[in-house]
């Protein structure tokens, strides 16, 4: 005997997660089209690792394996990890990062819904701290054919320096450090139109997938809008003050993980803020910290650390931003 409501909307965690996976497809397609199919192999690697770790941890924790394994949440984590790692990373690095995310980041905190930190960002942070050199080796447009790429991923052929180009964020950082001028650095050919050859398209594809999530009501507008607004605001002000030192909003929004962060990372329901106002604060905080790291920090792309730092603040943000309950606003007056 169960109680009301007897009617349920046709929805499930699997449906939500599958929609997120589908929304990631445009960006994955664009990125592997422009930078080579190694990304797809990395996604496969991460997926298998994630599912294996999920099954293992569920079994160890004495939880039913099948329902959790088919809820697709592990795959979402795996794909997010794969897309933010350089696609020519040696296979074991991806496996290590994914296993860390699932085992430490997810299950040691109690599994689905319990993790205070975004598991994909934990993996990214672990790898960039442990293997900074490997993690900065991003390929340029269409570097090597598929076989060569596979050799790099699986064979341990590590003559990467010749083939990997710096990411736009890296290039800007090095350019500025060697006394260059931001505008001049960005005019170099490797930079494409705005934020690096090819990278703008990937960013736009993330944006398109994000709009799909918005349209399907998987995410709300609060996080992406606050993120984009704050990122534009701070980078805009900075570049107005000192254009030689700071890149403008267009660059910051289209370079690196900004768009993915705005629509797919900061919107992670489990580790993010939940109240409407809380989401605004949370996303604004991420944008601000990410910009600070990019402009002044030691790491090229600040999204991962910004997300992890804001994850810490979530309980406080949620507590302080509870919306007024029905009948408890303005003393009930209209």
């Amino acid at each position, binding site marked *: 005997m169960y109680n009301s409501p007897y009617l349920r909307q046709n929805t499930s965690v699997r449906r939500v997660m599958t929609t997120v996976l589908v929304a990631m497809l445009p960006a994955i397609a664009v990125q592997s089209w422009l930078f080579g199919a190694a990304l797809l192999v990395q996604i496969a690697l991460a997926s298998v690792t994630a599912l294996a770790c999920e099954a293992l941890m569920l079994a160890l924790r004495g939880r039913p394996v099948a329902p*959790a394994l088919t809820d697709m949440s592990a795959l979402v984590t795996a794909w997010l990890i794969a897309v933010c790692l350089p696609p020519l990373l040696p296979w074991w690095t991806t496996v290590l990062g994914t296993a860390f995310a699932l085992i430490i980041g997810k299950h040691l905190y109690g599994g689905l819904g319990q993790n205070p930190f975004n598991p994909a960002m934990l993996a990214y942070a672990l790898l960039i701290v442990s293997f900074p050199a490997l993690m900065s080796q991003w390929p340029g447009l269409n570097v090597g054919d598929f076989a060569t790429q596979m050799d790099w991923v699986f064979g341990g052929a590590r003559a990467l320096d010749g083939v990997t180009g710096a990411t736009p964020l890296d290039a800007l950082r090095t350019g500025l450090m060697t006394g260059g001028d931001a505008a001049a650095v960005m005019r170099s050919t490797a930079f494409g139109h705005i934020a690096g050859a090819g990278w703008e398209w990937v960013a736009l594809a993330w944006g398109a997938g994000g709009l799909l999530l918005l349209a399907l009501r998987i995410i709300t507008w609060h996080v992406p809008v606050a993120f984009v607004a704050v990122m534009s605001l701070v980078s805009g002000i900075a570049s107005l003050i000192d254009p030689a030192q700071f890149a403008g909003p267009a660059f910051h929004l289209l370079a690196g993980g900004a768009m993915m962060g705005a629509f797919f990372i900061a919107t992670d329901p489990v580790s993010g803020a939940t*109240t409407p106002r809380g989401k605004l604060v949370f996303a604004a905080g991420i944008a601000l910290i990410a910009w600070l790291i990019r402009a002044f920090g030691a790491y090229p792309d600040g999204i991962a650390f910004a997300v992890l730092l804001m994850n810490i603040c979530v309980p406080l943000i949620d507590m302080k931003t509870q919306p007024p309950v*029905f009948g408890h606003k303005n003393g009930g007056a209209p």
Partner: protein
Amino acid sequence: MLRKLFSFNGGVKPDPNKGASTREPIARLPLPPQLIIPLHQHIGGTPRPLVKVGDRVLHGQRIGAADGNVSSAVHAPTSGHVVAIEPRLMPHASGLSSMAVVIEPDGQDQRIEREPFDWHAASPGEVRDYLRDAGVVGLGGAVFPSHLKLAPGKAGGTDTLVLNGAECEPFITCDDMLMRSEAEDILRGALVMQKMLAAKQVLVGVEDNKPEAAAALKAAAAALAHASLDVVVVPTRYPAGGAKQLIRVLTGIEVPHGSRSTDYGVQCFNVATALAVWNALEHGEPLTRRIVTVAGNVDRPRNFDVAIGTPIGFVFEHAGLKPDTDKLIMGGPMMGIPLPGVDAPVVKATNCLLASSPALFPPPEPELPCIRCGECARACPADLQPFELYWHSRARNFGRAQEYHLFDCIECGCCAYVCPSHIPLVDYYRYAKSEIWARERDKDAADSARERFEFRNWRAEREKEEKAAKLAARSAAKPAAKPAATDKPPAEGDTAATPAEDPKKALIEAAMARAKAQKEAVAAKNTDTLTPAQQAQVEAAEARRKLAADMVATGDGETTRATATADKPTE
């Protein structure tokens, strides 16, 4: 007139499923072989039975009298004989029984003489008493005695009377059908209530998925030509029919949990209640029947005009219950309660009887962990954070659950409806609420026990003090009294020095001595008159017992048994 509507946050749009039961007009259900009329059908005190087993009752006769003012009478829906007054199964999820008058109809449907009641001339107080004795209660499901809500609020009277025709639960259509067929009398009833409340305006809210009902009401309103009466079509969204949600939509006022809408100048009644008021006042008809939607897994879904007390099984028979029905629900699929059985009767609160089948309402999928997606918060019409309530209820952290406004939850089920993790959220809130209530009760009980205890202590203390004071007063008085009492024998003076002590002691000692003597006498009886043979037996037994005890002490059981058997032949 174009009226500005307000909206409430949240809400959901489940498939209304209202087509099936509105195809045919309301049908009058025949009388069952037995009517089970619970005495307690409303919020408030349980009515006292006015009949005895064996009595013949008439249609409309009062069989239960309101117990005080917060109560409402019950009546016989037909003529017949009272065959039992006993606890019967109630249409309640708990499966509890409650006192009911069981009537066997005699088929004559003989009415009692209708006492004319000139409500136009009567004072509002008299009208209210009349409605109480006519058993008129809210028919929207909450069954609050209507007369209690028909007094103008203290501060400047009522501004708005809201008539609730926004039947928002899927499947339920009883109000819809009633509005279509009785629109004019419903509005007449509303105007009476408006007069009683001294309300400035009457707003009738109808959801826009009931165009026929809205049209009928509008036509009736035009015919009545009452300037302060307005039929307002509101958007269809569950739970727009919740009183506080409808008040919000129509007036913009948010009535918080725990306060009454009258405090904000608004009073809300269900449309069927307005009709019941009209029928009671104008036709002298007490509330003995109501419209019940029978829907779901039945062959002929329809609205029936049912005598209150009709067993639910009898109603379902007429609608053709399908064989794969797995449970019966009273109310709608969002807030309905599971019925304990088909023997429970239709009561004043029964707006819908819903048959469920696994195909119609599949059992919930297994519960997954909450992913904090916030869907529930977006759907909650009370603007709560349901997942926080869930989390704290589950952790039995009831204090925190209350901080997150657990008691503002109206149990509408929107959150559970949208949850992708299929968490039965409302069940957690019901559990938390009942735990909190139980604790309050325990605390109250403990408090009153403590108070009783403290009072007893205080009284004992006081008596002791009083005694001491008396004693002190007496001993203080003695020196003054002594000279006057010198002529008395000194012995008496001595006893007075240790007041009541010595005689008591002597008495007790005497009593004890008597008891001792008695006991000795009794104890002696047993062995006094023993014959020598008996004496020998006793001694043998005594010796055996001693031997056995020794054996046990040395652990030699074998010998004990041997001795025991050896003894036998001598007996």
